[in-house]
């Protein structure tokens, strides 16, 4: 067990907390918050592997170019997590707008009662 294992256990348990909330809660906002928590767990995995594993792209290039390649390849995990956060922000905005639209239509955000597609 090393610190990469600990990071992955952390993200797995956080993912499952979000999964449990998304499955068992009935309010739409709770489900959305659970999904956000799962997205955060995925971001934690990006950062954990970026931090702990050597960049594989450096080994294949080899030679003197390896040093310069390390900088860009080392940043790839961070860049990926950054774009993932941006997409999560867009998803939260659209999700909460959908919840408001559902509320205006049905006067409630109970997911078990929102069974109609017709709007």
């Amino acid at each position, binding site marked *: 067990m090393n610190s990469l294992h600990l990071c992955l256990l952390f993200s797995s348990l956080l993912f499952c907390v979000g999964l*449990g909330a998304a499955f*068992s809660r009935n309010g739409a906002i709770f489900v959305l918050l659970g999904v*956000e928590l799962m997205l*955060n767990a995925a971001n934690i995995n990006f950062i954990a592997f970026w931090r702990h*594993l050597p960049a594989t792209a450096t080994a294949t290039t080899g030679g003197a170019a390896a040093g310069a390649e390390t900088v860009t390849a080392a940043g790839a995990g961070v860049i990926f997590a950054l774009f993932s956060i941006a997409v999560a922000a867009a998803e939260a905005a659209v999700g909460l707008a959908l919840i408001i639209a559902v509320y205006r239509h049905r006067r409630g955000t109970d997911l078990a009662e929102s069974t109609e597609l017709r709007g």
Partner: protein
Amino acid sequence: MELLLSNAALCLVAVATIATAAVALSLRGIVHATLLLVPAWFGVAAFYLWADAQFIAFAQVLVYVGAISMVALFAVLLTRAGGGAPEPVRAQLSVPGAVVAAAVAVTLVAAVLNTPFDAVAPAGVAAGDAAKVWNPSQPPPPVVPERAVAAIGRSLVEKYIPELLAAGVLLTVALLGAVLLAASPKTDTATGNAA
């Protein structure tokens, strides 16, 4: 010793974050749940700081603590049912959901614990040389924060400029769509009723 302290800090952050998130998502009142999730977002940001990803940590605080929590609170206030009674947890839904989540947790934890990450070697490096490239019993070398942030900023506007533009377009379209979805459709219903 250094590795032990680092791992202890990680465990502390992880336990605090998971416990806060679990308590927040099992609360009945959604306002309290949203507010109690703020320490969980901060805990994830603390993990990013632990992992020397300062840029992501500050992005996390800005986006999740600053934006998503506030937008969620707005949604809570806008969708408040008349009496404001706390939403009950459905008993028939919560037990299978918890069982599935626990099963996924057991599977993931077993998979992580059974994967020997020490054996992972970069492509092109012989298995015997892998220890020179990365020794799991040592903490990874620290990243110089200023240099890392500068490198991220430079690669965002040089190497990843199409992705950055695509993310900007995505955010614009998503926010416009959100406004259209959430805007009060008075004119639409008026014409719909007339038709």
